[in-house]
């Protein structure tokens, strides 16, 4: 992963930590994402990937997302 390259959460390999850059979804859904910890600048770790679903760890909690949500979260490499 190149430094600062912008990807969506769907592209993140398992175990990788990334930083959230932007949320591209309906406004109230973005709000919900932020409340659940998916806030801009938050660090997320991809725990596992199922078929069409992803489990992430954010703020010490595991959160399950579907592809549609994950693809709306723009992230960049961490560190």
């Amino acid at each position, binding site marked *: 992963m190149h430094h600062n390259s912008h990807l969506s959460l769907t592209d993140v390999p398992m175990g990788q930590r990334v930083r959230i850059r932007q949320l591209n979804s309906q406004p109230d859904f973005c709000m919900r994402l932020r409340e659940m910890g998916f806030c801009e600048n938050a660090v997320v770790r991809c725990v596992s990937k199922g078929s069409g679903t992803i489990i992430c760890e954010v703020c010490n909690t595991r959160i399950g997302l*579907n592809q549609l949500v994950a693809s709306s979260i723009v992230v960049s490499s961490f560190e």
Partner: protein
Amino acid sequence: MTFETVKQVRVRYVALIGNPNCGKTTLFNALTGLRQKVGNYPGVTVEKKEGRLTLAGNSEATLLDLPGTYSLNATSPDEKIATDILLGRAEHTQRPDVVVCVVDASNIERNLYLVSQILDRQIPVVVALNMIDVAEEAGIEVDVKMLERELGVPVVATIANKGIGINELKESIANAQSRTAQKRPWSMPALVEEECGELVGLLQQYHKLNENSAFDEALTLLTSPEALEEHRDRFAPELLAHVQKDHERLDFMGIDRQSVVVEARYEWIKSVCGKAVTQAQTSALSTSDKLDRVFTHRIWGFVIFVGLMALIFQTIFTWATVPMDLIGEGFDSIGNHIHEVMPAGDLRDLLINGGLAGVAAVVTFLPQILFLFLFLGLLEDTGYMARAAFIMDRLMSKVGLHGKSFIPMLSSFACAIPGIMATRTIESPKDRLVTMLVSPLVSCSARLPVYALLIAAFIPHDHVLGFLSLPALTLLSMYLLGLVMALSMAWLFKKTLLRGAAPLFIMELPPYKLPSLKSVLLQMWERSKLFLKNAGTIILGVSIILWFLATYPRVEGVTPAEQLQHSFVGKAGQLIEPVIKPLGFDWKIGIGIIASLLQREVFVSTMGTIYNIQNSDDESGSLSLQQQMRNDIDPETGLPVWTALTAICVMVYYVLAMQCMSTLAVLKRETNSWKWPLFQLGYMTALAYVVTFVVYRVGLLWGFGV
């Protein structure tokens, strides 16, 4: 503890608020010591739940358990309840005197987000820092004194499930102090602060709002994208023009208006955590992570899920038979005893055939229902339920719903009522309505006695694939039929009546944990109480009425079977027979269906009563209900009334038909109109009739009718 603004509050009404999965319900139990009235349903806390709280000096207060919520910006109906009560906007609930904000110590950052919103509200707050033991295990150390200083409100460390910190928490609640105009701890970028300040001034000037609500409104106007359109009528044009300019300015400066407040809150939370929380860096996978690799695996996850379900149904059918036989024998001996000690006559008949037969037929199934609730309780308590929703998301998305809609369906295996209430966590109103409409198609525990009776009586005890018994497989098929139909109807409704965008699925997966036997047993106990109460009231009542209708008018000199045919029930049954004949049902089954419109298990008690009366004067009267049904011969055709095909058809009808008034009443309450309950009644009954008809005809063609 000393605080600048000291004013003792009279504590009468206390509310518990917190994120989902922060141990709020456990804390509620620990504080009140009262068994919960609504906790008997597996699933999320969605109902208004109150308990008595004894504070220091024996003063009494009411403790209210609010639904779990991530924020005060309500998006789903259950969160709206919490927000409305907290802000004093709820019609039937007063504003609490003190709010106890439950914070999961192992997930302190996100939990503090809600705390930061509540702190803005000038309500007396006590923070319960719960599950500190779990946090310590995860390498998280919290400096409670420092956190208290940073938040400016009392913080009490608790371990609710071990009762630790409960007395200290009660003391803090009793000593809660009013908080007057404290400085807001978090701040936004300077430009936003400046504009917000101006708006607060204008709102106070034009609309005479107090500072607190002016600040709320100013934030909404500045940050919400639809604020201008939504509030056009509420505010003065001058003010709206000002807001418009503010928006333009912030947009020009490249400030994301939507996220600016959330980011500001998280910034503050980070600084609080920086001072009060130390976390040992662990890169190793936690146990939950390792388990999730298997349980949510794209293939294994699904295999495990199906395997678990099969195991549950197999167990319900095999283990439960032992206590069921015991209960059956117990009722038989009571019946025999009454038979011996009482003189023959109508009263004895009423007691044995009316009261006892009906109640016994239903109570026998208590063990199976207990097993079902044991397993559902375990799934919920271990944290697997959320994974089930996660695994099912892919399947659910095929029908246009998301994984969250699966939890109401899973709860509906117990009862559609908690199922319908569990839909309150679904954000989209259309998806929620679709889920409510189809959830009752999932086989609930009230159908179990019907399936169990018919399977035991008519499905042979053969084995398939060596380990699955044919009865267990039939039972599983009935459950699958309900589930498949629920999904198909959901797909149909999403395509036609209730079109909507593709669902966005996001859901917290709580850590796996060992189940608490106490809470699972408590659920089973509450459930069996409810079940027995029903048996003692509704079922007993219906059985007695049915006995009268099946015994009178008396005709002299005929056999009991002929007498039954001449009774009110017999006449009514023959009246409806033409309607149900195409399904292969005789008039007795018709009576069963009508009597069980109220609730499904009445079918079993009805069969118990009718067959006991029909066979009351010969030897077969002492046989089991199953045996009597097997021996029943149609006097006109000379063929058995019941075949395996009839049994399957009756079961299919019960899978699909809406035979539960309570569910309709709950749907009416949730949708606030009779339109949807009536629609549900109509579509389910039509579906049941058509599918049963097809099954019967196809079965006859294949030669299963003998």
